[in-house]
């Protein structure tokens, strides 16, 4: 019997085909593996680079929150876990967060006092993100021979912290050392400058209902640095025209009845403005804001021995000129008389008064005096009772300390006759004004009612006057080393 061997020959061809498929598959798999590995590595580095900035900015937010507390919650500022103070610098040793184990640390120092005595803070933060994958010796630059790409932008610490080794831990060329990193990582550093927000950024800022002013009323602005006020808002060729249309009104309420001529912008929170044709600037009905309660500053000096009240005729002759940071400070138990505040010689003199009572008396602020009055109670005066002889509104500033009991209603009533130049910051007070006073200054209040044909002139110098009521970040730089 003849046994055929044909099937074995067919198997050879099949084997050949399978081998070819295998080889082709191996090549294909290798192609995919090569591409994906390089891409994954680069993607991981890009991710870490971006996340390290997120971490640094998170550290900036943490520090910024503490800076804000110096105004809004002074007793708890920089007191949380992780914060230490040494050599004028608050340091947060580090916070780790997120599934990728991002970490951040911050340093905050007070580096500047402005002309109001408000402190400015500098925040330096570092954010670090681990780089996933194997510890490598270099990056996949692929920019050509001798040309670097990613490694110029994304500085990865594969074995050592390059920043500490090259510039020192604080970046000041001090303390350079080789610092081994546990795993490959990217760190980015940013510096923020946090500036105080002063209270008088608008002519009138009102957190609640608003009614006013009279049909023939007018709100405009000027700049006291250029001389006394005169009306220029309807004359584009006037050299001070640019300063004349900043009589802004901001209302955090939909209940806003606006009357009179407004040379400036008008912002509300969902309000429907009638007579918007009488607003020369922008009308924006989607500008919500909050006014935090005002607390008595804690950094004032020890009060002078006398006077301790303003009854009858009381005169303050300060013993020194003082400074915005350290004014001549007086603590009053009552304020129902006639108070006169004189300068110290011919020097610009800084005086602060805290009255724990209502204000129902009069005040006369002589030229070269900068007076700040903090009041715990209410204000009930005539417009003529607030005499500010320099005419500069910033030289007479009234601050209403918010009642600790929210059910207590603080009030400010201004009656005719008379005019005044002053600023009032009372975020918890209901402000009522009758008559037709001529006012130079700015107002911040809880609710506003004014039914007269008032002329109101906002001084643009006020946008950087007064005690800090909050903080904002005004400068951002990244240390790209």
């Amino acid at each position, binding site marked *: 019997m003849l046994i055929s061997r044909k099937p074995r020959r067919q198997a050879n061809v099949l084997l050949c085909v399978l081998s070819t498929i295998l080889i082709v598959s191996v090549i294909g798999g290798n192609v995919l593996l090569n591409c994906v590995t390089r891409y994954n590595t680069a993607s991981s580095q*890009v991710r870490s680079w971006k996340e390290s900035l997120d971490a640094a900015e998170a550290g900036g937010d943490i520090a910024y929150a503490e800076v804000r507390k110096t105004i809004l919650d002074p007793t708890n500022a920089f007191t949380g876990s992780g914060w230490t103070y040494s050599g004028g610098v608050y340091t947060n040793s580090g916070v780790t967060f997120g599934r990728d184990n991002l970490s951040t640390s911050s340093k905050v120092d007070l580096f500047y006092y402005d002309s109001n005595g408000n402190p400015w803070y500098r925040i330096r933060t570092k954010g670090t993100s681990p780089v996933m994958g194997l510890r490598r010796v270099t990056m996949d630059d692929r920019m050509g021979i001798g040309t670097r790409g990613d490694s110029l932008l994304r500085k990865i610490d594969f074995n050592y912290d390059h920043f500490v080794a090259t510039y020192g831990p604080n970046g000041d060329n001090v303390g350079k050392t080789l610092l081994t990193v546990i795993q490959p990582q990217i760190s980015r550093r940013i510096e923020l400058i946090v500036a105080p927000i002063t209270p008088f950024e608008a002519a009138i800022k009102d957190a609640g209902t608003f009614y006013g002013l009279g049909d023939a009323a007018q709100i405009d602005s000027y700049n006291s640095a250029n001389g006394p006020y005169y009306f220029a808002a309807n004359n584009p060729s006037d050299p001070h025209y640019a300063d004349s249309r900043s009589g802004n009104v901001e209302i955090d309420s939909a209940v806003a009845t606006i009357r009179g001529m407004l040379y400036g912008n008008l912002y509300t929170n969902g309000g429907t403005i009638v007579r918007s044709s009488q607003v020369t600037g922008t009308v924006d009905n989607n500008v919500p804001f909050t006014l935090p309660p005002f607390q008595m500053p804690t950094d004032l000096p020890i009060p002078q021995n006398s006077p301790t009240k303003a009854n009858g005729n009381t005169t303050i002759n300060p013993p020194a000129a003082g400074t915005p940071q350290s004014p001549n400070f007086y603590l009053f138990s009552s304020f129902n008389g006639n108070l006169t505040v004189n300068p110290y010689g011919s020097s610009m003199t800084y005086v602060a008064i805290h009255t724990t009572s209502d204000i129902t008396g009069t005040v006369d602020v002589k030229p070269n005096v900068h007076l700040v009055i903090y009041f715990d109670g209410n204000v009930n005066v005539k417009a003529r009772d607030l005499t500010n002889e320099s005419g500069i509104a910033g030289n007479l500033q009234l601050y209403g300390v918010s009642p600790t009991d929210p059910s207590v209603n603080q009030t400010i009533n201004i009656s005719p006759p008379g005019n005044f130049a002053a600023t009032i910051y009372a975020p918890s007070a209901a402000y009522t004004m009758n008559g037709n006073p001529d006012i130079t200054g700015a107002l911040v209040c809880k609710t506003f009612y004014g039914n007269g044909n008032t002329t109101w002139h906002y001084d643009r110098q006020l946008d950087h006057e007064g005690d800090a009521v909050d903080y904002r970040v005004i400068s*951002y730089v990244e240390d790209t080393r």
Partner: protein
Amino acid sequence: MKLASSQKSSGFTLSELLVTLSLSSVVLGVAIICGISLQKSFNATDNFLATHIQQVRIIDYLNRDVKRGLIVTTSVDLQSVTMTLPSYLIQTGDTEALTNPSLVNTPRTPTISYTSSGWQVNYGVSTTNVVYSINGSSIVRIENGVVTTIASSTDQLVPTTTDVDLANTEYASTSVTFMPIFNLAGNTADRTGTTLYATAYLRNKRRG
């Protein structure tokens, strides 16, 4: 019973050899074509991903500078971007460095001034000028005259940046495209399909 001898049929006939050779040639040809195709595919994929990484790099460079910028302006054709940045680090030749050379490459303490547009934070008396532009097949970044090539590709990378000025702020929108080396006769869709978009806001108040 006599068994047939197997030795008589151990060779191949001519026709069998021809068929085998033909089949082998076809299989080998297919293998070679597959190999070449895979190599081309590898190159194309690798190029695509490498160029994509460069897209990301261009945008990351731009965003980093926009965020810390004081002024950002783009050319009319949107192909170059000029920025003004704070001079955060003391450089050789700066006033501080002349007084104390050890301060070179250390951060400055800023100064504060009040201007007609409000408070201003200044790092040194001058600012840093940065220009992004296209130079042949490369994208270059020029900082105070020093040129750095940040991306270079045979895939015709093109960044396009617009800057938008809002009230008291500004942002820059950037898109970067490239033409993959595998494309259908320069079809526009092949380029637009690679577009990468990004928007970055100035963290500083715009000056000028």
